């Protein structure tokens, strides 16, 4: 063998262990007590939202839904490290990040049901609609981030995909473009161990997903995705780096989804064991952060109960709002195709209104 031309390392970040004990004091993020409690509230809300969404899907009151339980630390912690001015570019599972970045919950319910209003993100909210084509959001994020750089704004774009998504060409292209342009982007991979039924080991022989950053020449970090403080610390550092003009970072959060891939008929008992699930349940992000906060005197059962009740009310309210959305008409779809409908579309619109064929 010849000489070594390059060497790489993938750091691992963890702040809290499974028992809620601080494992790395230097990485402990500088957050106020209120911020810490807010993080916990959001994780509890997300757990309740997931339980309710699953029930609502079974009742036929929601449509497409991809469960998130288990991924609360990874989702909430990463979004918490961004500013409102930053752009969130989600995959189809990333609804909690959307909610906390300002995408109204009722609109996400409408998105789930398949209503046009569901994609109409409010003008002052920097979130893209959830992306169904796995990887497409990654190349778009390179463009959004380059846009901030060209405008000279110290803002970042953060995007999400899963472990399976790292096998897509667009995943590599997006990271590589952002790297080549030193664009302020954070690529956040939620490695929840399975892409539907396919285990992460079948996606790649790579030891970590974070090391895929090496191919783009950007830093890659693996973080304990069940540890909200670890996730926050890793994303905060990546965001600071991006804002300072030093380019993108890839973060792999090692996490788990307790539920099925989606509510569209996936049955996880076909591909994973009770033992595997039990192992991950011990690492539950809510349990360890609850322990940490309780020991600091920042959290109580009463408080958690209040958050749960408030969450239920919020969800009920959002559902009501979704129910009151006007029924769509085919004309509405035609009118939003272009700024000005083409002659052909005008003719088709007239046809729908019974004004003769063709």
């Amino acid at each position: 063998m010849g000489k070594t031309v390059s060497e790489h390392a993938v750091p691992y970040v963890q702040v809290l262990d499974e028992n809620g004990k601080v494992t790395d004091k230097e990485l402990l993020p500088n957050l106020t007590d209120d911020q810490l409690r807010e993080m916990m509230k959001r994780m509890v809300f997300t757990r309740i939202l997931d339980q309710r969404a699953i029930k609502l899907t079974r009742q036929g009151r929601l449509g497409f839904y991809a469960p998130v339980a288990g991924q609360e630390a990874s989702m909430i912690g990463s979004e918490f490290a961004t500013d409102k001015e930053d752009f969130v570019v989600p995959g189809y599972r990333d609804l909690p990040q959307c909610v906390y970045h300002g995408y109204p919950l009722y609109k996400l319910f409408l998105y789930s049901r398949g209503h046009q209003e569901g994609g109409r993100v409010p003008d002052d909210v920097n979130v893209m609609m959830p992306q169904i084509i796995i990887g497409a959001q990654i190349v778009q994020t390179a463009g959004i981030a380059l846009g901030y750089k060209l405008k000279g704004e110290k803002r970042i774009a953060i995007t999400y995909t899963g472990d399976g998504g790292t096998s897509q060409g667009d995943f590599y292209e997006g990271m590589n473009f952002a790297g080549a342009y030193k664009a302020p982007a954070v690529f956040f991979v939620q490695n929840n161990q399975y892409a539907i039924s396919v285990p992460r080991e079948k996606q790649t022989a790579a030891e970590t997903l974070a090391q895929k950053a090496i191919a783009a020449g950007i830093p890659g970090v693996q973080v304990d995705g069940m540890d909200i403080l670890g996730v926050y610390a890793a994303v905060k550092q990546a965001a600071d780096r991006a804002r300072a003009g030093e380019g993108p970072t890839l973060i792999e959060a090692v996490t788990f989804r307790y539920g099925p891939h989606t509510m569209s008929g996936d049955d996880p008992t076909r591909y994973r064991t009770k033992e595997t699930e039990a192992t991950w349940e011990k690492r539950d992000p809510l349990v360890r952060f609850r322990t940490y906060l309780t020991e600091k005197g920042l959290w109580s059962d009463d408080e958690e109960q209040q958050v749960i009740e408030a969450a239920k009310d919020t969800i009920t309210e959002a559902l009501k709002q979704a129910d009151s959305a006007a029924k769509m008409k085919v004309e509405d779809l035609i009118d939003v195709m272009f700024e000005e409908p083409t002659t052909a579309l005008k003719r088709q619109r007239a046809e729908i209104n019974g004004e003769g064929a063709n």
Partner: protein
Amino acid sequence: MAQMTMIQAITHALDLELARDEKVLLFGEDVGNNGGVFRATEGLQKKYGEDRVFDTPLAESGIIGLANGLAVQGFRPVPEIQFFGFVFEAFDQIASQIARLRYRSGGRFHAPVTIRSPFGGGVRTPELHSDSLEGLFLQSPGIKVVIPSTPYDAKGLLLSAIRDNDPVIFLEHMRLYRSFRQEVPEEEYTIPLGKANVVREGKDVTIVTYGAMVGVSQKAADQWAKDKGLQAEVIDLRTISPIDIETIAASIQKTGRAIVVQEAQRSAGAGAEIVAQINEQAIFHLEAPVLRVTPPDTVYPYGLIEDEWLPTQQSVLAALNKVVSL
């Protein structure tokens, strides 16, 4: 006024738009310092800087994804795909993403993106450079497809395409880049998208065509007039999505007969859609079926047999003679 080739008219149009609107960005493989593989962006990076005209890594999906993201940020991207045969790499970002952005966001986001790309046969390119793939995007709701055939049209249509607030695919036929010069005004002018142009008046048969087949059809029509004393009306579609059926129908009302001439294979291109729309809008004026002049449904040919595979003046003449005999 100046005499320009089509490629000069394109460069000139890009120059005008870069100067007019600071949100216009040009990018792609080798479009910067190199000025493009056909010199379409020659001198533009030097004039407007690397923040406006820049090279990208070699990845088509990345290029169009970048355009999508920049559009979300309020820019007006004009990305280039080096040869349209490479469009398959970017198919998702065009057909599933950019073309649907306004619709899926209920109008919150839109994509004022103009994708420039060379295509077209007759210049002995290697594989997958010359294929006519425009038909694929006729079937993609949300995107317009423009194919100019003259320097004058290329400039006016490109200005319209860039200013359009929805995505446009602007296909540049390689054989037309430098094949002839035409008077092109120096000042700004636009040609509306979706409007065809009657390039030769006639009363006996309507020829509907686009791209390099416009010139072939015009020559065939001239020859036909000499040989038979019959006059073919030639319509250059200029935009193939949406199709200007009104202009076609008005012409057929006069001629009663039509043929469609395209460089794409029989099952590809815009031909079948044109015939279908003629059936819907003008069937009572037809005295004969609408015939199509196209290459056969094979893969794009090897360079050495290109001229025999592509439609020629003779094949157009044959169709004209046939359609008047029916």
